[in-house]
Protein backbone atom coordinates (compact mmCIF):
# COMPACT_ATOMS: atom_id res chain seq x y z
CA UNK A 1 0.00 0.00 0.00
CA UNK A 2 1.35 3.36 -0.90
CA UNK A 3 0.95 6.00 1.77
CA UNK A 4 -0.71 9.14 0.54
CA UNK A 5 -0.15 12.37 2.43
CA UNK A 6 -1.74 15.71 1.63
CA UNK A 7 -1.36 19.14 3.14
CA UNK A 8 -3.98 21.83 3.27
CA UNK A 9 -5.36 24.58 5.51
CA UNK A 10 -8.51 24.96 7.60
CA UNK A 11 -10.62 25.99 4.63
CA UNK A 12 -9.18 23.12 2.58
CA UNK A 13 -10.03 20.62 5.33
CA UNK A 14 -13.62 21.88 5.33
CA UNK A 15 -13.78 21.39 1.58
CA UNK A 16 -12.33 17.90 2.03
CA UNK A 17 -15.09 17.02 4.50
CA UNK A 18 -17.76 18.58 2.29
CA UNK A 19 -16.55 16.60 -0.72
CA UNK A 20 -16.75 13.38 1.32
CA UNK A 21 -20.29 14.21 2.44
CA UNK A 22 -21.32 14.94 -1.13
CA UNK A 23 -20.19 11.53 -2.32
CA UNK A 24 -20.64 9.17 0.63
CA UNK A 25 -23.01 8.23 3.40
CA UNK A 26 -21.29 10.13 6.20
CA UNK A 27 -21.45 9.99 9.98
CA UNK A 28 -19.95 12.68 12.22
CA UNK A 29 -20.26 14.08 15.75
CA UNK A 30 -23.47 16.08 16.10
CA UNK A 31 -24.00 18.27 19.12
CA UNK A 32 -27.26 18.18 21.06
CA UNK A 33 -27.74 19.75 24.49
CA UNK A 34 -23.98 20.08 24.82
CA UNK A 35 -23.30 16.41 24.11
CA UNK A 36 -21.98 14.79 20.97
CA UNK A 37 -23.09 11.62 19.26
CA UNK A 38 -22.32 10.20 15.83
CA UNK A 39 -25.19 10.79 13.41
CA UNK A 40 -25.80 10.59 9.70
CA UNK A 41 -25.03 14.04 8.24
CA UNK A 42 -25.29 15.62 4.81
CA UNK A 43 -23.91 19.11 5.50
CA UNK A 44 -20.85 20.21 7.43
CA UNK A 45 -22.92 22.80 9.29
CA UNK A 46 -24.83 20.00 10.99
CA UNK A 47 -21.80 18.50 12.66
CA UNK A 48 -18.44 19.16 14.24
CA UNK A 49 -15.67 16.78 13.15
CA UNK A 50 -13.38 18.66 15.56
CA UNK A 51 -15.65 17.97 18.54
CA UNK A 52 -13.97 18.17 21.94
CA UNK A 53 -12.35 15.07 23.36
CA UNK A 54 -14.65 14.96 26.36
CA UNK A 55 -17.37 13.41 24.28
CA UNK A 56 -19.59 10.91 25.96
CA UNK A 57 -20.16 8.66 22.97
CA UNK A 58 -17.79 6.66 20.81
CA UNK A 59 -18.27 5.28 17.30
CA UNK A 60 -19.00 1.80 18.71
CA UNK A 61 -22.79 2.03 18.22
CA UNK A 62 -22.24 2.35 14.45
CA UNK A 63 -20.74 -1.17 14.53
CA UNK A 64 -22.45 -2.70 17.55
CA UNK A 65 -25.88 -1.03 17.80
CA UNK A 66 -27.23 -0.13 21.23
CA UNK A 67 -30.33 -2.17 20.59
CA UNK A 68 -30.84 -4.16 17.41
CA UNK A 69 -33.75 -6.25 16.24
CA UNK A 70 -32.62 -9.82 15.79
CA UNK A 71 -35.85 -11.27 14.44
CA UNK A 72 -39.60 -10.98 14.39
CA UNK A 73 -42.01 -13.80 15.04
CA UNK A 74 -45.63 -14.71 15.13
CA UNK A 75 -46.50 -17.46 17.59
CA UNK A 76 -50.08 -18.70 17.64
CA UNK A 77 -51.76 -21.99 18.40
CA UNK A 78 -51.44 -22.72 14.67
CA UNK A 79 -47.64 -22.62 14.91
CA UNK A 80 -44.66 -20.34 14.99
CA UNK A 81 -43.18 -18.30 12.16
CA UNK A 82 -39.84 -16.60 12.55
CA UNK A 83 -38.74 -13.93 10.10
CA UNK A 84 -35.64 -11.87 9.66
CA UNK A 85 -35.95 -8.13 10.21
CA UNK A 86 -36.40 -6.12 7.02
CA UNK A 87 -33.82 -3.42 7.40
CA UNK A 88 -30.26 -4.06 6.27
CA UNK A 89 -28.12 -1.34 7.80
CA UNK A 90 -25.02 -2.73 6.15
CA UNK A 91 -25.79 -2.32 2.51
CA UNK A 92 -23.92 0.90 1.77
CA UNK A 93 -20.35 1.95 2.20
CA UNK A 94 -19.95 4.81 4.62
CA UNK A 95 -17.42 7.24 6.02
CA UNK A 96 -17.00 8.35 9.63
CA UNK A 97 -15.52 11.79 10.28
CA UNK A 98 -14.14 13.05 13.55
CA UNK A 99 -13.46 9.72 15.24
CA UNK A 100 -10.89 10.02 18.00
CA UNK A 101 -7.93 7.67 17.99
CA UNK A 102 -9.27 5.89 21.09
CA UNK A 103 -12.56 5.23 19.27
CA UNK A 104 -10.76 3.72 16.31
CA UNK A 105 -8.40 1.69 18.48
CA UNK A 106 -11.35 0.28 20.44
CA UNK A 107 -12.61 -1.38 17.25
CA UNK A 108 -9.28 -3.15 16.79
CA UNK A 109 -9.69 -4.51 20.32
CA UNK A 110 -13.30 -5.57 19.66
CA UNK A 111 -12.28 -7.28 16.39
CA UNK A 112 -10.56 -9.92 18.52
CA UNK A 113 -13.68 -11.14 20.31
CA UNK A 114 -15.98 -10.74 17.33
CA UNK A 115 -13.69 -12.66 15.00
CA UNK A 116 -13.04 -15.40 17.54
CA UNK A 117 -14.74 -18.74 17.00
CA UNK A 118 -18.32 -17.82 16.03
CA UNK A 119 -17.75 -14.85 13.76
CA UNK A 120 -20.05 -11.86 14.07
CA UNK A 121 -20.60 -11.34 10.35
CA UNK A 122 -22.77 -8.23 10.79
CA UNK A 123 -20.05 -6.51 12.76
CA UNK A 124 -17.49 -7.62 10.19
CA UNK A 125 -19.57 -6.30 7.30
CA UNK A 126 -19.98 -2.95 9.05
CA UNK A 127 -16.21 -2.82 9.62
CA UNK A 128 -15.43 -3.64 5.99
CA UNK A 129 -17.92 -1.10 4.66
CA UNK A 130 -16.66 1.81 6.74
CA UNK A 131 -13.82 4.24 6.17
CA UNK A 132 -12.75 5.87 9.44
CA UNK A 133 -11.23 9.33 9.40
CA UNK A 134 -9.66 10.23 12.71
CA UNK A 135 -8.22 13.52 13.85
CA UNK A 136 -5.34 13.26 16.25
CA UNK A 137 -6.05 15.20 19.43
CA UNK A 138 -4.01 18.34 20.14
CA UNK A 139 -4.19 18.09 23.90
CA UNK A 140 -5.18 15.44 26.43
CA UNK A 141 -8.34 15.93 28.43
CA UNK A 142 -8.72 15.50 32.20
CA UNK A 143 -9.46 11.75 32.16
CA UNK A 144 -7.46 10.67 29.09
CA UNK A 145 -4.71 8.07 29.47
CA UNK A 146 -4.48 6.56 25.99
CA UNK A 147 -0.70 7.03 25.82
CA UNK A 148 -0.31 4.82 28.91
CA UNK A 149 -1.80 1.70 27.35
CA UNK A 150 -0.65 -1.22 25.23
CA UNK A 151 -0.85 0.37 21.80
CA UNK A 152 1.35 2.66 19.76
CA UNK A 153 -0.79 5.76 19.54
CA UNK A 154 1.65 7.66 17.33
CA UNK A 155 1.73 4.99 14.64
CA UNK A 156 -1.82 3.74 15.15
CA UNK A 157 -3.29 2.08 12.07
CA UNK A 158 -6.81 1.67 13.46
CA UNK A 159 -8.11 4.54 11.32
CA UNK A 160 -8.08 4.59 7.53
CA UNK A 161 -7.22 8.28 7.27
CA UNK A 162 -5.33 10.34 9.81
CA UNK A 163 -5.82 14.11 10.14
CA UNK A 164 -3.23 16.12 12.08
CA UNK A 165 -3.27 19.82 12.93
CA UNK A 166 0.44 20.58 12.47
CA UNK A 167 2.11 23.04 14.81
CA UNK A 168 3.10 24.88 11.60
CA UNK A 169 -0.56 25.90 11.19
CA UNK A 170 -1.13 23.50 8.29
CA UNK A 171 -3.35 20.46 8.26
CA UNK A 172 -2.00 17.07 7.20
CA UNK A 173 -4.17 14.29 5.81
CA UNK A 174 -2.52 10.88 5.62
CA UNK A 175 -3.75 7.45 4.54
CA UNK A 176 -3.17 4.63 7.00
CA UNK A 177 -4.80 1.74 5.13
CA UNK A 178 -5.52 0.75 1.52
CA UNK A 179 -9.14 1.82 2.06
CA UNK A 180 -7.93 5.22 3.21
CA UNK A 181 -5.52 5.58 0.28
CA UNK A 182 -8.32 4.73 -2.12
CA UNK A 183 -10.49 7.49 -0.68
CA UNK A 184 -7.69 10.07 -0.76
CA UNK A 185 -6.97 9.19 -4.39
CA UNK A 186 -10.38 10.47 -5.46
CA UNK A 187 -11.28 14.13 -6.00
CA UNK A 188 -12.06 14.65 -2.30
CA UNK A 189 -8.48 15.91 -1.97
CA UNK A 190 -8.71 18.44 -4.80
CA UNK A 191 -8.28 21.32 -2.35
CA UNK A 192 -5.17 19.81 -0.82
CA UNK A 193 -1.69 19.19 -2.21
CA UNK A 194 0.41 16.08 -2.06
CA UNK A 195 3.36 16.26 0.22
CA UNK A 196 6.33 13.91 0.65
CA UNK A 197 6.89 11.98 3.85
CA UNK A 198 10.23 13.77 4.28
CA UNK A 199 8.26 16.99 4.70
CA UNK A 200 5.22 15.70 6.59
CA UNK A 201 6.67 13.17 9.03
CA UNK A 202 8.76 15.61 11.12
CA UNK A 203 5.66 17.83 11.51
CA UNK A 204 3.50 14.89 12.58
CA UNK A 205 6.16 13.81 15.05
CA UNK A 206 6.41 17.26 16.59
CA UNK A 207 2.66 17.48 16.97
CA UNK A 208 2.57 14.06 18.62
CA UNK A 209 5.30 15.00 21.07
CA UNK A 210 3.40 18.13 22.11
CA UNK A 211 0.20 16.11 22.49
CA UNK A 212 1.90 13.29 24.40
CA UNK A 213 3.39 15.83 26.80
CA UNK A 214 -0.05 17.12 27.79
CA UNK A 215 -1.30 14.12 29.81
CA UNK A 216 -2.26 14.52 33.44
CA UNK A 217 -2.73 10.75 33.89
CA UNK A 218 0.12 8.31 33.40
CA UNK A 219 0.39 4.67 34.37
CA UNK A 220 2.50 1.63 33.71
CA UNK A 221 -0.03 -0.76 32.20
CA UNK A 222 2.37 -3.71 32.41
CA UNK A 223 2.65 -3.24 36.14
CA UNK A 224 -1.14 -2.98 36.47
CA UNK A 225 -1.64 -6.12 34.33
CA UNK A 226 0.92 -8.05 36.36
CA UNK A 227 -0.28 -6.95 39.79
CA UNK A 228 -3.99 -7.40 39.08
CA UNK A 229 -3.41 -10.87 37.67
CA UNK A 230 -2.08 -11.92 41.06
CA UNK A 231 -4.94 -10.39 43.06
CA UNK A 232 -8.44 -11.78 43.22
CA UNK A 233 -9.59 -11.53 46.79
CA UNK A 234 -8.76 -8.07 48.05
CA UNK A 235 -10.85 -5.68 50.13
CA UNK A 236 -9.68 -2.91 47.79
CA UNK A 237 -12.46 -3.82 45.38
CA UNK A 238 -14.97 -3.02 48.11
CA UNK A 239 -13.35 0.35 48.73
CA UNK A 240 -13.35 1.40 45.09
CA UNK A 241 -16.89 0.22 44.32
CA UNK A 242 -18.66 1.45 47.44
CA UNK A 243 -20.19 4.51 45.82
CA UNK A 244 -21.26 2.75 42.59
CA UNK A 245 -25.01 3.06 41.93
CA UNK A 246 -24.97 0.19 39.40
CA UNK A 247 -26.41 2.43 36.68
CA UNK A 248 -24.26 0.74 34.00
CA UNK A 249 -23.54 4.05 32.27
CA UNK A 250 -19.80 3.27 32.21
CA UNK A 251 -20.40 0.16 30.13
CA UNK A 252 -22.90 1.82 27.81
CA UNK A 253 -20.49 4.62 26.86
CA UNK A 254 -17.35 2.46 26.88
CA UNK A 255 -15.97 1.94 23.37
CA UNK A 256 -14.79 -1.60 24.19
CA UNK A 257 -17.53 -3.00 26.44
CA UNK A 258 -19.41 -5.57 24.40
CA UNK A 259 -21.69 -7.47 26.76
CA UNK A 260 -25.24 -7.76 25.56
CA UNK A 261 -28.54 -9.32 26.48
CA UNK A 262 -31.15 -11.02 24.39
CA UNK A 263 -34.73 -10.11 25.16
CA UNK A 264 -38.10 -10.98 23.69
CA UNK A 265 -40.93 -8.48 23.57
CA UNK A 266 -44.27 -9.89 22.61
CA UNK A 267 -47.66 -8.27 22.32
CA UNK A 268 -50.46 -10.75 21.72
CA UNK A 269 -49.13 -13.13 19.06
CA UNK A 270 -46.41 -10.97 17.57
CA UNK A 271 -42.99 -10.48 19.03
CA UNK A 272 -39.54 -9.07 18.43
CA UNK A 273 -36.24 -10.37 19.73
CA UNK A 274 -33.69 -7.68 20.60
CA UNK A 275 -29.98 -7.77 21.21
CA UNK A 276 -29.21 -4.81 23.51
CA UNK A 277 -26.31 -3.47 25.54
CA UNK A 278 -25.94 -4.99 28.97
CA UNK A 279 -23.35 -4.58 31.68
CA UNK A 280 -21.51 -6.67 34.24
CA UNK A 281 -22.43 -4.00 36.79
CA UNK A 282 -26.06 -5.10 36.64
CA UNK A 283 -27.02 -7.06 39.72
CA UNK A 284 -29.05 -9.51 37.64
CA UNK A 285 -26.33 -9.96 35.00
CA UNK A 286 -25.23 -13.35 36.30
CA UNK A 287 -28.33 -14.17 38.35
CA UNK A 288 -29.52 -17.70 37.62
CA UNK A 289 -33.01 -19.11 37.88
CA UNK A 290 -33.31 -20.47 41.38
CA UNK A 291 -31.44 -17.55 42.88
CA UNK A 292 -27.76 -18.48 42.62
CA UNK A 293 -25.60 -15.52 41.62
CA UNK A 294 -21.79 -15.74 41.46
CA UNK A 295 -21.56 -11.92 41.57
CA UNK A 296 -24.32 -10.87 43.96
CA UNK A 297 -22.52 -7.84 45.37
CA UNK A 298 -21.03 -4.69 43.88
CA UNK A 299 -17.42 -5.38 44.66
CA UNK A 300 -17.56 -8.68 42.82
CA UNK A 301 -19.09 -6.99 39.80
CA UNK A 302 -16.46 -4.25 39.88
CA UNK A 303 -13.79 -6.89 40.21
CA UNK A 304 -15.14 -8.52 37.05
CA UNK A 305 -15.17 -5.15 35.28
CA UNK A 306 -11.61 -4.22 36.24
CA UNK A 307 -10.21 -7.73 35.75
CA UNK A 308 -11.94 -8.23 32.39
CA UNK A 309 -10.41 -4.99 31.15
CA UNK A 310 -6.90 -5.44 32.50
CA UNK A 311 -6.40 -9.22 32.99
CA UNK A 312 -8.93 -11.59 31.39
CA UNK A 313 -9.17 -10.04 27.94
CA UNK A 314 -5.41 -9.65 27.85
CA UNK A 315 -4.97 -13.33 28.73
CA UNK A 316 -7.48 -14.41 26.15
CA UNK A 317 -6.95 -12.00 23.27
CA UNK A 318 -3.64 -10.28 24.00
CA UNK A 319 -5.04 -6.75 24.43
CA UNK A 320 -6.26 -4.61 27.28
CA UNK A 321 -10.01 -4.11 27.05
CA UNK A 322 -9.52 -0.43 27.83
CA UNK A 323 -8.24 2.25 25.49
CA UNK A 324 -7.86 5.00 28.09
CA UNK A 325 -10.53 7.29 26.61
CA UNK A 326 -11.99 8.38 29.96
CA UNK A 327 -15.59 8.27 28.73
CA UNK A 328 -16.72 6.11 31.67
CA UNK A 329 -15.27 8.57 34.13
CA UNK A 330 -16.76 11.62 32.42
CA UNK A 331 -20.21 10.02 32.49
CA UNK A 332 -20.09 8.38 35.92
CA UNK A 333 -22.68 9.97 38.24
CA UNK A 334 -20.55 9.20 41.29
CA UNK A 335 -17.13 9.99 39.81
CA UNK A 336 -15.62 6.51 39.77
CA UNK A 337 -12.55 6.48 37.55
CA UNK A 338 -11.37 3.22 36.01
CA UNK A 339 -7.86 4.69 36.05
CA UNK A 340 -8.03 5.19 39.80
CA UNK A 341 -9.72 1.85 40.40
CA UNK A 342 -7.07 -0.27 38.72
CA UNK A 343 -4.19 1.78 40.07
CA UNK A 344 -5.53 1.73 43.63
CA UNK A 345 -6.22 -2.01 43.59
CA UNK A 346 -2.84 -2.75 42.00
CA UNK A 347 -0.98 -0.82 44.69
Amino acid at each position, binding site marked *: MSVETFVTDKAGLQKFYEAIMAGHETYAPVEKFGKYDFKRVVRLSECDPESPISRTQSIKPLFFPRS*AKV*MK*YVATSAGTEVS*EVDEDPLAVKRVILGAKHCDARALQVLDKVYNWDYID*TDYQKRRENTVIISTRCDKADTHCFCTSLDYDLENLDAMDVLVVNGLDGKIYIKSKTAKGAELLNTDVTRHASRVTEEVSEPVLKKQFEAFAGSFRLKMDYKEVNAKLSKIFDTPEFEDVSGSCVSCNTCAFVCPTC*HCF*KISDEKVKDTGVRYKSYDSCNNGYF*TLMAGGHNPRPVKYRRWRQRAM*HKFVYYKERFGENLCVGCGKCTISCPVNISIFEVVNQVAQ
Partner: protein
Amino acid sequence: MEQLLVPMICKVDKVIQETPDIRTYRLTFRDEGMMEKFSYLPGQFVEFSLLGSGECTFCIASSATRKGYFDCSIKKAGVVTADIHTSIEEGDEVGIRGPFGNWFPLDDIKGKNLLFVGGGIGLAPLRSLIQYCIDNRNDYKDFTILYGARTSADMCYKDEIKEWQDDKSLKVVLTIDKPEDTWASNVGVVPKILEEVVKPVIENTKVITCGPPIMIKYTIQSLLKLGFADKDIITTLEMKMQCGLGKCGRCNIGSTYVCKDGPVFTNEQLKSLPDEF
Protein backbone atom coordinates in the same frame (compact mmCIF):
# COMPACT_ATOMS: atom_id res chain seq x y z
CA MET B 1 -24.21 -12.35 14.79
CA GLU B 2 -27.89 -11.52 14.59
CA GLN B 3 -28.54 -14.65 12.48
CA LEU B 4 -26.81 -16.77 15.12
CA LEU B 5 -29.37 -15.55 17.64
CA VAL B 6 -32.34 -16.71 15.58
CA PRO B 7 -33.59 -20.11 16.78
CA MET B 8 -34.78 -23.06 14.74
CA ILE B 9 -38.31 -24.23 15.45
CA CYS B 10 -38.78 -27.53 17.25
CA LYS B 11 -41.95 -29.44 17.97
CA VAL B 12 -42.63 -30.79 21.46
CA ASP B 13 -43.42 -34.48 20.87
CA LYS B 14 -43.83 -35.45 24.47
CA VAL B 15 -43.91 -33.88 27.92
CA ILE B 16 -42.89 -36.17 30.76
CA GLN B 17 -43.59 -35.13 34.34
CA GLU B 18 -40.45 -36.41 36.07
CA THR B 19 -40.96 -34.92 39.52
CA PRO B 20 -43.35 -32.30 40.95
CA ASP B 21 -41.10 -29.54 39.54
CA ILE B 22 -39.15 -31.19 36.69
CA ARG B 23 -40.48 -31.99 33.25
CA THR B 24 -38.70 -33.52 30.29
CA TYR B 25 -39.55 -32.08 26.88
CA ARG B 26 -38.90 -34.43 23.99
CA LEU B 27 -38.16 -32.37 20.88
CA THR B 28 -37.82 -32.81 17.13
CA PHE B 29 -37.06 -30.21 14.50
CA ARG B 30 -40.00 -29.03 12.46
CA ASP B 31 -37.94 -28.74 9.28
CA GLU B 32 -37.56 -32.09 7.65
CA GLY B 33 -34.04 -33.48 7.63
CA MET B 34 -32.89 -31.07 10.34
CA MET B 35 -33.04 -33.71 13.08
CA GLU B 36 -30.53 -35.88 11.18
CA LYS B 37 -28.23 -32.90 10.72
CA PHE B 38 -28.41 -31.94 14.40
CA SER B 39 -25.29 -33.67 15.66
CA TYR B 40 -24.23 -33.26 19.25
CA LEU B 41 -22.16 -35.04 21.86
CA PRO B 42 -22.94 -35.74 25.51
CA GLY B 43 -22.36 -32.66 27.66
CA GLN B 44 -23.36 -30.04 25.09
CA PHE B 45 -26.20 -27.60 25.66
CA VAL B 46 -28.84 -25.68 23.73
CA GLU B 47 -30.55 -22.33 24.08
CA PHE B 48 -34.25 -23.04 24.48
CA SER B 49 -36.76 -20.29 23.60
CA LEU B 50 -40.30 -19.97 24.67
CA LEU B 51 -40.93 -17.15 22.23
CA GLY B 52 -42.28 -14.12 24.02
CA SER B 53 -41.13 -15.30 27.39
CA GLY B 54 -37.41 -15.71 26.87
CA GLU B 55 -34.49 -17.96 26.23
CA CYS B 56 -32.77 -20.28 28.73
CA THR B 57 -29.77 -22.57 28.68
CA PHE B 58 -30.37 -26.31 29.13
CA CYS B 59 -28.12 -29.28 28.66
CA ILE B 60 -29.22 -31.93 26.21
CA ALA B 61 -30.39 -34.75 28.47
CA SER B 62 -30.35 -37.49 25.83
CA SER B 63 -27.73 -39.05 23.58
CA ALA B 64 -27.49 -38.72 19.81
CA THR B 65 -27.10 -42.49 19.75
CA ARG B 66 -30.87 -42.54 20.32
CA LYS B 67 -32.13 -41.25 17.00
CA GLY B 68 -35.03 -39.04 16.03
CA TYR B 69 -35.38 -36.73 19.03
CA PHE B 70 -33.55 -34.99 21.83
CA ASP B 71 -34.60 -34.26 25.42
CA CYS B 72 -34.35 -31.21 27.65
CA SER B 73 -35.25 -31.70 31.30
CA ILE B 74 -36.40 -28.46 32.83
CA LYS B 75 -36.83 -27.65 36.47
CA LYS B 76 -39.25 -24.91 37.41
CA ALA B 77 -36.83 -22.46 38.96
CA GLY B 78 -37.35 -18.98 37.55
CA VAL B 79 -39.61 -16.82 35.40
CA VAL B 80 -39.05 -18.46 32.01
CA THR B 81 -38.96 -22.03 33.33
CA ALA B 82 -42.24 -21.39 35.18
CA ASP B 83 -43.73 -20.13 31.90
CA ILE B 84 -42.41 -23.22 30.12
CA HIS B 85 -44.07 -25.49 32.66
CA THR B 86 -47.33 -23.56 32.54
CA SER B 87 -47.72 -23.07 28.83
CA ILE B 88 -45.90 -25.74 26.82
CA GLU B 89 -47.95 -28.77 25.90
CA GLU B 90 -47.39 -31.67 23.54
CA GLY B 91 -47.61 -30.44 19.95
CA ASP B 92 -46.45 -26.92 20.77
CA GLU B 93 -43.48 -25.27 19.10
CA VAL B 94 -40.37 -23.86 20.76
CA GLY B 95 -37.13 -22.29 19.51
CA ILE B 96 -33.77 -24.03 19.76
CA ARG B 97 -30.24 -22.75 19.10
CA GLY B 98 -27.20 -24.95 19.36
CA PRO B 99 -25.65 -27.31 20.15
CA PHE B 100 -23.06 -25.27 22.05
CA GLY B 101 -20.12 -25.88 24.33
CA ASN B 102 -17.70 -28.73 24.77
CA TRP B 103 -18.52 -32.31 25.69
CA PHE B 104 -17.42 -35.00 28.09
CA PRO B 105 -13.91 -36.24 27.25
CA LEU B 106 -15.03 -39.33 25.33
CA ASP B 107 -11.50 -40.37 24.37
CA ASP B 108 -10.24 -40.14 27.95
CA ILE B 109 -13.02 -42.27 29.45
CA LYS B 110 -12.78 -45.04 26.85
CA GLY B 111 -11.60 -48.32 28.33
CA LYS B 112 -12.07 -47.06 31.89
CA ASN B 113 -14.34 -47.87 34.82
CA LEU B 114 -17.07 -45.25 34.95
CA LEU B 115 -18.59 -43.82 38.10
CA PHE B 116 -21.47 -41.40 37.65
CA VAL B 117 -22.46 -39.35 40.69
CA GLY B 118 -25.62 -37.30 40.24
CA GLY B 119 -27.93 -35.28 42.41
CA GLY B 120 -31.43 -34.01 41.58
CA ILE B 121 -31.72 -32.38 38.15
CA GLY B 122 -27.94 -32.86 37.85
CA LEU B 123 -28.66 -36.29 36.45
CA ALA B 124 -29.83 -34.63 33.20
CA PRO B 125 -26.37 -33.96 31.67
CA LEU B 126 -25.10 -37.28 33.05
CA ARG B 127 -28.00 -39.10 31.40
CA SER B 128 -26.76 -38.00 27.98
CA LEU B 129 -23.40 -39.61 28.67
CA ILE B 130 -24.91 -42.64 30.47
CA GLN B 131 -27.08 -43.38 27.42
CA TYR B 132 -24.10 -42.86 25.11
CA CYS B 133 -21.95 -45.23 27.17
CA ILE B 134 -24.70 -47.86 27.49
CA ASP B 135 -25.05 -47.73 23.71
CA ASN B 136 -21.30 -48.33 23.45
CA ARG B 137 -21.13 -50.59 26.51
CA ASN B 138 -18.18 -52.68 25.27
CA ASP B 139 -15.95 -49.60 25.34
CA TYR B 140 -16.13 -49.38 29.14
CA LYS B 141 -15.38 -51.61 32.11
CA ASP B 142 -17.26 -51.32 35.44
CA PHE B 143 -20.22 -49.00 35.20
CA THR B 144 -21.63 -47.48 38.39
CA ILE B 145 -24.37 -44.90 38.78
CA LEU B 146 -24.91 -43.23 42.16
CA TYR B 147 -27.95 -40.98 42.16
CA GLY B 148 -29.45 -39.03 45.01
CA ALA B 149 -32.48 -36.79 45.45
CA ARG B 150 -34.13 -35.01 48.36
CA THR B 151 -37.08 -37.44 48.33
CA SER B 152 -38.08 -40.44 46.24
CA ALA B 153 -40.61 -38.24 44.45
CA ASP B 154 -37.79 -35.88 43.41
CA MET B 155 -35.98 -38.57 41.40
CA CYS B 156 -35.90 -37.95 37.66
CA TYR B 157 -36.15 -40.61 34.94
CA LYS B 158 -37.75 -43.17 37.24
CA ASP B 159 -38.64 -45.58 34.42
CA GLU B 160 -35.22 -45.37 32.91
CA ILE B 161 -33.54 -45.93 36.29
CA LYS B 162 -35.55 -49.17 36.52
CA GLU B 163 -34.12 -50.20 33.14
CA TRP B 164 -30.64 -49.40 34.43
CA GLN B 165 -31.29 -51.49 37.55
CA ASP B 166 -32.45 -54.40 35.39
CA ASP B 167 -29.28 -54.20 33.30
CA LYS B 168 -26.89 -56.63 35.00
CA SER B 169 -23.87 -54.85 33.53
CA LEU B 170 -24.65 -51.69 35.50
CA LYS B 171 -24.43 -51.06 39.23
CA VAL B 172 -27.06 -48.57 40.34
CA VAL B 173 -27.06 -47.06 43.83
CA LEU B 174 -29.90 -44.75 44.83
CA THR B 175 -30.25 -42.57 47.89
CA ILE B 176 -32.62 -40.01 49.37
CA ASP B 177 -31.91 -37.44 52.06
CA LYS B 178 -34.43 -38.55 54.70
CA PRO B 179 -36.12 -41.93 55.44
CA GLU B 180 -39.48 -42.69 53.84
CA ASP B 181 -41.83 -45.55 54.72
CA THR B 182 -41.84 -47.10 51.29
CA TRP B 183 -38.14 -46.56 50.57
CA ALA B 184 -36.04 -49.70 50.86
CA SER B 185 -32.79 -48.33 49.54
CA ASN B 186 -30.10 -46.01 50.95
CA VAL B 187 -30.76 -42.92 53.03
CA GLY B 188 -28.17 -40.16 53.32
CA VAL B 189 -26.48 -37.47 51.30
CA VAL B 190 -24.59 -38.45 48.16
CA PRO B 191 -21.01 -37.99 49.48
CA LYS B 192 -21.79 -40.19 52.51
CA ILE B 193 -23.25 -43.00 50.38
CA LEU B 194 -20.32 -42.64 47.99
CA GLU B 195 -17.86 -43.30 50.81
CA GLU B 196 -19.85 -45.85 52.82
CA VAL B 197 -21.83 -47.81 50.23
CA VAL B 198 -20.31 -47.40 46.77
CA LYS B 199 -16.69 -47.56 47.95
CA PRO B 200 -15.43 -47.12 44.40
CA VAL B 201 -12.33 -48.63 42.84
CA ILE B 202 -9.93 -45.75 42.33
CA GLU B 203 -7.61 -47.26 39.80
CA ASN B 204 -8.51 -46.78 36.16
CA THR B 205 -11.78 -45.05 37.07
CA LYS B 206 -13.21 -41.80 35.74
CA VAL B 207 -15.84 -40.05 37.84
CA ILE B 208 -18.45 -37.87 36.19
CA THR B 209 -20.49 -35.79 38.61
CA CYS B 210 -23.21 -33.16 38.46
CA GLY B 211 -25.76 -31.85 40.91
CA PRO B 212 -26.51 -28.84 43.09
CA PRO B 213 -23.34 -26.75 43.75
CA ILE B 214 -23.22 -27.86 47.40
CA MET B 215 -23.42 -31.54 46.41
CA ILE B 216 -20.68 -31.15 43.80
CA LYS B 217 -18.47 -29.42 46.37
CA TYR B 218 -18.77 -32.18 48.99
CA THR B 219 -18.71 -34.97 46.41
CA ILE B 220 -15.41 -33.70 45.06
CA GLN B 221 -14.04 -33.49 48.62
CA SER B 222 -15.07 -37.11 49.21
CA LEU B 223 -13.57 -38.26 45.92
CA LEU B 224 -10.27 -36.60 46.73
CA LYS B 225 -10.34 -38.14 50.19
CA LEU B 226 -10.92 -41.56 48.62
CA GLY B 227 -7.81 -40.99 46.52
CA PHE B 228 -9.09 -39.90 43.11
CA ALA B 229 -6.84 -37.57 41.11
CA ASP B 230 -8.19 -34.16 40.06
CA LYS B 231 -7.84 -35.06 36.40
CA ASP B 232 -10.11 -38.10 36.85
CA ILE B 233 -12.98 -36.07 38.32
CA ILE B 234 -15.15 -34.53 35.60
CA THR B 235 -18.05 -32.18 36.17
CA THR B 236 -20.23 -29.84 34.19
CA LEU B 237 -20.88 -26.29 35.33
CA GLU B 238 -23.98 -24.19 35.27
CA MET B 239 -23.58 -20.47 34.65
CA LYS B 240 -25.90 -17.75 33.50
CA MET B 241 -25.57 -17.65 29.73
CA GLN B 242 -27.37 -15.89 26.93
CA CYS B 243 -25.63 -16.14 23.58
CA GLY B 244 -23.79 -19.45 23.96
CA LEU B 245 -21.29 -18.09 21.45
CA GLY B 246 -18.57 -16.59 23.65
CA LYS B 247 -19.71 -13.01 23.03
CA CYS B 248 -22.31 -11.77 25.51
CA GLY B 249 -19.91 -11.77 28.44
CA ARG B 250 -21.71 -13.24 31.44
CA CYS B 251 -20.56 -16.86 31.85
CA ASN B 252 -16.85 -16.25 32.30
CA ILE B 253 -14.83 -17.39 35.28
CA GLY B 254 -11.61 -15.45 34.90
CA SER B 255 -10.64 -15.66 31.23
CA THR B 256 -12.45 -18.98 30.80
CA TYR B 257 -15.79 -18.87 29.02
CA VAL B 258 -18.05 -21.59 30.40
CA CYS B 259 -20.06 -21.56 27.15
CA LYS B 260 -17.03 -22.14 24.94
CA ASP B 261 -14.32 -23.73 27.07
CA GLY B 262 -16.94 -25.61 29.09
CA PRO B 263 -19.42 -26.47 30.44
CA VAL B 264 -17.46 -29.72 31.03
CA PHE B 265 -14.30 -29.36 33.13
CA THR B 266 -12.04 -31.67 35.07
CA ASN B 267 -11.38 -30.77 38.68
CA GLU B 268 -7.80 -30.11 37.63
CA GLN B 269 -9.06 -27.35 35.30
CA LEU B 270 -11.48 -25.98 37.92
CA LYS B 271 -8.69 -25.60 40.43
CA SER B 272 -6.85 -23.22 38.11
CA LEU B 273 -9.86 -20.87 37.91
CA PRO B 274 -10.58 -17.98 40.28
CA ASP B 275 -13.02 -18.94 43.02
CA GLU B 276 -16.13 -17.36 41.52
CA PHE B 277 -18.76 -20.04 40.90
